[in-house]
């Protein structure tokens, strides 16, 4: 079955420090990959996406993610976090095989920023 795993439920980072959020997927073929961010009471905002091509993708708000096929991973990174980055982060995958493409989401990582 298709699945997305985010191993870290909570992560605490000091403001100004670097950040890496982990994501692993299990799919029959290379899926489309996304990172979304959700602030309390808000919908999901797309940070970045990978469909094909360059395995290092740049997103909004200074985020980037690297697709590693050999590790079935799509980790999100940011060199220096800001207090406004505190939120819930979701990794998601979609079927690239031409069928239904509803997304499969991980359970999310809650990011806490320490002053």
């Amino acid at each position, binding site marked *: 079955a298709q699945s*997305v795993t985010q191993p870290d439920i909570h992560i605490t980072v000091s403001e100004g420090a670097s950040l890496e959020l982990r994501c692993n997927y299990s799919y029959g073929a290379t899926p*489309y990959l*996304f990172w*979304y961010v959700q602030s309390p*009471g*808000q*919908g*999901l*905002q*797309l940070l970045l*996406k990978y*469909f094909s091509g360059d395995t290092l993708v740049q997103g909004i708000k200074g985020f980037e993610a690297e697709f590693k096929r050999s590790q079935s991973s799509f980790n999100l990174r940011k060199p220096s976090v800001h207090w406004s980055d505190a939120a819930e982060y*979701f990794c*998601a995958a*979609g*079927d*690239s095989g031409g069928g*239904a*493409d*509803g*997304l*499969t*989401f*991980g*359970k*999310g990582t809650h990011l806490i920023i320490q002053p």
Partner: protein
Amino acid sequence: EAGVAQSPRYKIIEKRQSVAFWCNPISGHATLYWYQQILGQGPKLLIQFQNNGVVDDSQLPKDRFSAERLKGVDSTLKIQPAKLEDSAVYLCASSLDRPETQYFGPGTRLLVL
């Protein structure tokens, strides 16, 4: 460009009652999705429409949930009768085509007592 609109934003009902949620996708978006997000979890796909046809409803509890998109634009998701475990946020998303980036609405937060 206006985003995905959903209403109501909040709803409280008692178990065994019925409830309906409405979604208006981004103009021109052919594909529409309904997701259920239970507290502490990631969203789970309930149903996907392409125009007014159903592409995937394999995870929709069809004994109590129904959804329609009659004219290929707005969509309604209904629960009848509601159970306690239906308490969740119901998210609507749309995309221009398949596969494409999905844009999410603010969600409807449902509490079943």
